[in-house]
């Protein structure tokens, strides 16, 4: 039994947002319902596609998802081929990319949020960041090929690949870090200055610890995207057949998405099964990274009260 006040407010709301029985007949209500159903279907369709995609990859992958698959090098025989080289390459790539992209990205974000005054230079940096976010990833590959592989003579190495991916991620890391920095109230900065801290001390001891979960979440989500990037690595010439794990940052390498692409583009359908198994591993890694990001955000943000 609801209270009279609740009933009244519910009725009032319904009248306000079109209690059609007063003004219109049934047909329009049906039309609206039909339209709502169409909208819901439009939203549901892509999600259904996503579900089918996951299910399809899993079903195709099932026969090859063994421990051997994870611990074998690629082979000309599909049933003996594995993804060890690709996994190792992706792992190295991830760490190197993070090492390059995090200081640059967080540094740029701190500059823009905390140090920059409105000027032509600041405006130029801002415009560049938003432009770079829209540049197709394959163009970064062309940049990496000329700049890192040829001009800096790094060759088709892990370092060249990581540097290319780092540039690609930079706009994302900067934007996420700026968002996080903006969540810290100004009163905290002012309080730290009032206690005699200079700007850098205030940043390092007060502001950064406060927004670290936000920054980390942004970084992990960007890295999750980087792990699936294929086009720029192919353009800089990452090898598609590598039967060894990289042993230095100057080694040639392959990565998980490149290995998948290599298997998909072969005519023999036996290799497609390998591609599916690689895809399941890749999706698993991505979901794990996303999970870590969500967990981190929930765990670390709960403790902050102001």
């Amino acid at each position, binding site marked *: 039994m609801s209270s009279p006040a609740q009933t009244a407010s519910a009725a009032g709301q319904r009248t*306000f947002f*079109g209690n059609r029985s007063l003004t219109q007949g049934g047909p*329009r209500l049906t039309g609206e319902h039909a*339209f709502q159903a169409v*909208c819901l279907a*439009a*939203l549901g369709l*892509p*999600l259904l596609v*996503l579900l089918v*995609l996951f299910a*399809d*990859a899993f079903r195709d992958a099932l026969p090859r998802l063994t421990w051997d698959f994870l611990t074998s090098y690629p082979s000309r025989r599909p049933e003996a081929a594995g993804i060890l080289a690709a996994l190792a390459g992706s792992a190295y790539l991830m760490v190197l990319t993070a090492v390059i992209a995090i*200081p*640059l*990205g*967080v*540094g*740029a974000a*701190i*500059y823009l949020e905390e*140090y*920059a005054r409105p000027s032509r230079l600041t405006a130029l*940096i801002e415009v*560049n960041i938003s*432009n770079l976010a*829209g*540049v*197709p*990833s*394959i*163009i970064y590959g*062309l*940049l990496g*090929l*000329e700049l890192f592989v040829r001009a800096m003579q790094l060759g088709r190495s892990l370092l060249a690949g990581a540097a290319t991916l780092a*540039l690609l991620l*930079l*706009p994302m890391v900067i934007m996420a870090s700026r968002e996080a920095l903006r969540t810290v109230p*100004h009163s905290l900065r*002012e309080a730290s*200055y009032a206690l005699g801290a*200079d700007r850098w001390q*205030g940043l390092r001891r007060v502001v950064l610890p406060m927004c670290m979960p936000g920054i980390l979440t942004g970084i992990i989500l960007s890295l*999750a995207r980087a*792990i*699936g990037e*294929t*086009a720029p690595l*192919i*353009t*800089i010439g990452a090898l598609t057949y590598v039967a060894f794990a990289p042993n230095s940052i100057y080694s040639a390498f392959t990565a998980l*998405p490149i290995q998948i*692409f290599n298997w*998909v*583009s072969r005519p023999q359908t036996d290799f497609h099964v390998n591609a*599916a198994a690689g895809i399941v591993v890749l*999706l698993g890694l*991505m979901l794990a990274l*996303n999970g870590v990001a969500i967990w981190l955000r929930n765990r670390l943000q709960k403790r902050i009260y102001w």
Partner: protein
Amino acid sequence: MPGSKAKSHPELEQPRAFKERIIGWVLLLCGLVSVVTTAGIVAVLLTETWGFFREVSLEQFLADTQWTPLFAEKHFGIWPLMAGTMLTTATAVVVAVPLGLLSAIYLSEFAADRVRRLLKPVLEILAGVPTVVYGYFALTFVTPLLQALIPGLAGFNALSPGIVMGVMIVPVIASLSEDAVFAVPASLREGSYALGAGKLATIFRVILPSAFSGIAASVILGLSRAIGETMIVAIAAGQQPRLTLDPRVPIETMTAYIVQVSLGDTPTGTLEYRTIFAVGMTLFLMTFCLNLVSHRLRQHILRGGLQ
């Protein structure tokens, strides 16, 4: 100088120590990396494209209807690659615009708050799936499915990657359109209801026209994403540059061509090698213009273009 800044902090009045200044410079350098990156992209594309156009005339590039730089008889007409790109992009947009727009309307006008908060991140997963995975899906699932429906559909075609790409860019269009729809002032809705309009009339006659520039921005951004998308088309569209508008036959897009050459062993510095930069330049200019238009349209909304 202090006081000229919009957000004035008391720290501006503090004497700035030497250390502070060094830190400021280092952080500025981090920020400048983005400027250097843009300059690098433009410089790399311009130098190599310059080398390309010293050997191939602009007329050959724009007037020829064949693209065969890797064959003995070389032709450098960009149009077959352009046609392939347009074909997959058009398919993607035809799929993504209705799905994205209707999703946006559902999320902002019909869905309960809790439902919206649940559905939006799920929708975002679509954009986060690696494109190589979408390529596999287009080739091994969507193409066979479509072949059962459409007789004469080749194993590599423009249709199937286009459709899959469309699904991939739904979140781009849905999320930006939702922002635009959400930004329509409540007074307009209320005015419409006060005049006796129902929800449908309000959506179609008031909300969508008011949000038009934002919706256009989202569509243009989706277009730009589709043009620059690489792996789906490289896997499922084939590698046969041809000047056709038939989505059932194998084609090649600009991005797929770059991948094809990168995988081969074309020696650096040759004309064949430079073609990928000429194609890259074309791609960069196209997406850059689209992004610029989309950005302008969005700024228009932010500045209160609705009123």
